[in-house]
């Protein structure tokens, strides 16, 4: 079945450094969603990308959808301790139409 690979699994950064997580699929995606889960919390929807090459920004967060619609990235500029958590990508399976989540990238930020 369709799988989505998310890397890295963990990332430790110093506050103020940048952070990027990547989501890769072997098949063309119709769309991709990004979620953030704070420690002890539940996933919260951040954004959805639909168009090839699309770039969207939310303050210090930049989301990008690849030209071939097979990969996506989430980049955080100048991390803060409030950015701590696990970031998940989620894609719609072309076979079943169901939403499939990546394994997540857990971000730790050292003050």
């Amino acid at each position: 079945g369709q799988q989505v690979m998310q890397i890295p699994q963990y990332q430790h950064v110093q506050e103020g450094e940048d952070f990027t997580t990547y989501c890769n699929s072997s098949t063309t995606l119709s769309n991709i969603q990004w979620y953030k889960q704070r420690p002890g919390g539940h996933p919260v929807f951040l954004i959805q990308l639909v168009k090839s090459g699309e770039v969207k920004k939310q303050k210090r967060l930049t989301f990008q959808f690849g030209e071939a619609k097979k990969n996506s990235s989430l980049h955080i500029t100048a991390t803060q301790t409030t950015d701590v958590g696990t970031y998940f990508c989620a894609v719609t399976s072309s076979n079943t139409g169901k939403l499939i989540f990546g394994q997540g990238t857990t971000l730790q930020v050292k003050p």
Partner: protein
Amino acid sequence: DVKVTQSSRYLVKRTGEKVFLECVQDMDHENMFWYRQDPGLGLRLIYFSYDVKMKEKGDIPEGYSVSREKKERFSLILESASTNQTSMYLCASSPAPYHNSPLHFGNGTRLTVT
């Protein structure tokens, strides 16, 4: 704001017990989902429902069943709980169409089966 409420935050059950996890959403969403979350495995879909009395298997339905008698309520049932079902269970809802609508999650139920 969408609210998805799961009946219990923490639950401890014994092996072999029948377990009910309840989820209620207040935004008239058509779609409801049950996921389990385990370290290193991300979120895995157990069952989902796109309408009242309709249900579809997700990726890991074995050992589980669901019930959706009313639009706002989606129940997950563990017929005979086993220790490998110890996990965090997350309920979510979304408006139609489900393949490109954001999910709204509840706070989760951490189930321990002893």
